[in-house]
């Protein structure tokens, strides 16, 4: 069985996560599209912490018989990996967009110099 204290600690931690994410979005320091995965993480962890029978049942399915809260760790780790992978795709896109911008600026600058020179002549 899951110890009550583990459930309480899990619930508090996930609540803090949710509140922090909401506050960051409210203060416009985090965009909604990047907050969604974090919110999902917090909500899933909160549900699994509070719904003790559910956690025990899931632990049973997964063969985790000794210590059901281990499933909380597993789920948290899985979500963190998802968030990181998502960030890697975001960074890749930003890199491409950055390079594209640098290239366009180089081309525009050259064109601008040329037309200024032609006007001066």
């Amino acid at each position, binding site marked *: 069985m899951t110890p009550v204290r583990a459930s309480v600690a899990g619930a508090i931690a996930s609540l803090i996560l949710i509140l922090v994410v909401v506050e960051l979005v409210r203060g416009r320091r985090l965009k909604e599209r990047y907050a969604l995965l974090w919110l999902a993480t917090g909500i899933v962890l909160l549900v699994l912490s509070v719904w003790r029978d559910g956690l025990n049942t899931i632990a049973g399915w997964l063969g985790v018989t000794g210590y059901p809260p281990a499933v909380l760790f597993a789920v948290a780790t899985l979500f963190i990996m998802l968030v990181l992978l998502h960030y890697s795709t975001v960074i890749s896109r930003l890199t491409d967009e*950055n*390079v594209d911008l*640098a290239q366009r600026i*180089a*081309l525009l*600058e*050259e064109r601008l110099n040329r037309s200024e020179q032609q006007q001066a002549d």
Partner: protein
Amino acid sequence: MTHERLVAVVPAWNEAGAIGRVVEEIKAFDPAMEIVVVDDASTDETAIVAEAHGATVLRLLFNVGIGGAVQTGLRYARDEGYEIAVRLDGDGQHDASELGKLLEPIRAGEADIVIGSRFVDPGGAYRPPFARRLGIRVFARLVSLLGGQKVTDTTSGFLALNRRGIELFATEYPHDYPEVEATLVGLRSGLRLEQVQVDMRERQAGTSSITFVRSLYYIVKVTLALLVASLRRYPRLEPSQ
């Protein structure tokens, strides 16, 4: 016949010591050719020297890697309507007097991309160190296998492109360590590729960007890129007339 429109794309990163001579050699080969030096955010006088020798200089805001630099030049070639582009390295290792050999198959309409290879002719003068030769050979085999055409030198940055090649690589060109993957992308997009024997020189000045850790990264990155590129679908380009 009007003079065909030719542009030379020269990526350069901190090549102030070599770029002047590179530009002069291209001018000596064909004074009518526009020379575009893409300055990949050099910290030295590369751009100033190149400009002083009469090259058009495209200045990148920050270092984007050699592939990103070449692509900038090819975007220029595409936007300015050039029919043929050649690419030479800014360090002077490619001999501009050999450009004629690269241009021949393009002018004859036999190829869309011509690569200057050091290994077409087994008696060629270039003898790299063993590890490097092995790497070059492995990549050549892999590209030949995945691309369906025998390629001998996929790491060469000495090449000529017609309009189809320019248009393809202006949009599809890997940003770092681009040559091997670009060769495969070209083949998979249906470009007709030809290789001609060239010799390459030792660098004129500056230092090569290749170190041990980078070579490891190079091998892993390029292998992954090749495997992924062979899973991707590329638009088949219609044969040009």
